């Protein structure tokens, strides 16, 4: 019997702890498939962040270091500077990357650190139980914005790809989603490019993956995928925000 579908080698056998319907699992799989396809498992070092993906080190079959909240790009900088022959990636959520770790994010981009950043944006702090994130949409209800995000009082969401597109050092920025098959295929292509860029020495590459949090959004998995389409993507449009090596440069 032919095997037509199997777990990527770069994923371990550890059962994922993510909630039912959460798209972290899909994104993990895409990263692992890319590692397999590029044949870099033995040379890859991951940097886990704080948030739902804190235990990514258990799920990927590659060497891993767990970083403090927001500090993954700084830790990745150290790893990469120690051994530039290794493939170094961070896997971070929105609170980690766009709130407490804003400085590390912007400056690792500014330095054009030759690392790959997988940024999972689900507009909420999942691990701690659904608090308002830097990417929470205007008027969106969370545990700490129970009347909806009031931008007058707490400010506006941060659009990471748009923000970083103004940073000269950033080499490649693309926003993708994993809410349907077509988008998942595009997401994988973007992730692959972000890793290939590193192999080619092209510098800081970040893929923002618009994701879901059915549990904390209070939606079924199916409704959560719809919410991505109806609410998230209008605010966070998909596309390539910067690619300094592409013809025409950036979007």
């Amino acid at each position, binding site marked *: 019997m032919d095997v037509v579908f199997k777990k990527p080698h770069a994923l*371990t056998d550890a059962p994922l702890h993510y909630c039912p319907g959460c798209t972290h699992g899909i994104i993990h799989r895409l990263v692992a498939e890319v590692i397999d396809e590029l044949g870099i*498992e*033995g*040379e*890859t*070092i991951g*940097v*886990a962040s704080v948030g739902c993906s*804190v*235990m990514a*080190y*258990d799920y*990927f*079959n*590659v*060497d*891993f*270091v*767990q*970083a*403090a909240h927001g*500090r993954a790009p*700084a*830790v*990745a*900088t*150290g*790893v*990469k*500077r*120690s*051994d530039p022959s*290794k493939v170094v990636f961070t896997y971070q959520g929105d609170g980690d990357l766009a709130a407490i770790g804003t*400085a*590390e994010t*912007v*400056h690792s981009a500014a330095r054009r650190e030759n690392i790959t950043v997988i940024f999972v944006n689900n507009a909420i702090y999942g691990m701690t139980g659904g608090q308002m994130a830097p990417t929470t949409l205007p008027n969106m209800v969370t545990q700490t914005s129970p009347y909806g995000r009031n931008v007058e009082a707490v400010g506006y969401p941060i659009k990471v790809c748009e923000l970083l597109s103004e940073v000269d050092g950033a080499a490649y920025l693309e926003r993708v989603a994993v809410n349907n098959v077509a988008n998942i295929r595009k997401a994988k292509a973007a992730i692959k490019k972000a890793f290939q860029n590193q192999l080619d020495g092209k510098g800081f590459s970040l893929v923002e993956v618009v994701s879901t949090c059915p549990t904390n959004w209070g939606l079924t998995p199916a409704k959560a995928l719809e919410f991505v389409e109806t609410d998230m993507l209008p605010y966070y449009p998909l596309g390539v925000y910067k690619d300094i090596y592409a013809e025409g440069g950036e979007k």
Partner: protein
Amino acid sequence: MGEKVLMKGNEAIAEAAIRAGCRHYFGYPITPQTEVAAYMSKRMPKIGGTFLQAESEIAAINMVIGVSSTGKRVMTSSSSPGISLKQEGISYLAGCDLPALVVNVERGGPGLGGIQPSQSDYWQATKAGGHGDYHNLVLAPASVQEMAALTIKGFELADKYGMVAMILADGTMGQMMEPVEIDDIEIKTVDKPWALTGTGMKREHNIVNSLYLKPDLLEIKNFERYEKYAAIERDEVMYEEYLMDDAEYCIVAFGISARVAKNAINAARAEGIKVGMLRPITLWPFPKDALLARADQCKAFISVEMSMGQMIEDVELAIKCKKPVYLCNRVGGMIPSPEEVLAKIKEVGGAN
């Protein structure tokens, strides 16, 4: 080098680190330690190393974590307010059992404080400045030569025990020049099978981590770590005694305070007062046994510190409060004068 040259303490630290095989330095500018970064920025590019001025102290210590997790020697340096910012990373280094060298060239505090020398980060350095149960190895140089020697020693101890070694100096030690000789040393390396070097598809993946969601596991990690600390307290204590054989009074002082105290002791001896000094070189592990051994012989102890009295508590604990311990201190960037220390010796002598 083989010959003595004049170097600033900060430069001696940087050169010694390079001799010790450190090829990665991350820092952020702050007075009075900036010469370390300046020296590294000149030298590292010429020897294939990394000098990186980070966006913050926090980023710098996390870059240190990154390099350390790959098994290489790495350091950062700063002064008091910057060391406060690094505490998060230092706690993570402790929790991950990672080696690193952290240099604190102290200045006055709290807050932005001042830029003149101080020793008021003693508690922060020796009592776990960040969250959680842990210790750093804390080394207190009292000369430029020791700035170099203890930097090398710090890297060796950090590697040996898988933990942070901190050089606790002060603005005077960092800024002063003295003759120093730094020979090429044989670098003592230790195996680091836990290091992140890529699996090469030949082994299970290595994980460097401080997260243990199961409390029983986290408890075991803490107990194990404290067994290591107990071994260090037994094996790695360093101190120097000065004129203690017949001493009736014992000064306890480290770093620049010990230098000042030496003048005062010489002056007191000239007047017939039998006073000596025990100078801790490791502040953690603290030379508890050595102090206790002098408790019966001495009538009183004097802790000379540039703080409001931080080390004095460890002195009292070490001698089990058998004898009175007096404080002789200046703070805020002021340095006690030998005359002030002498006056304290006489005052204590009169009372005891």
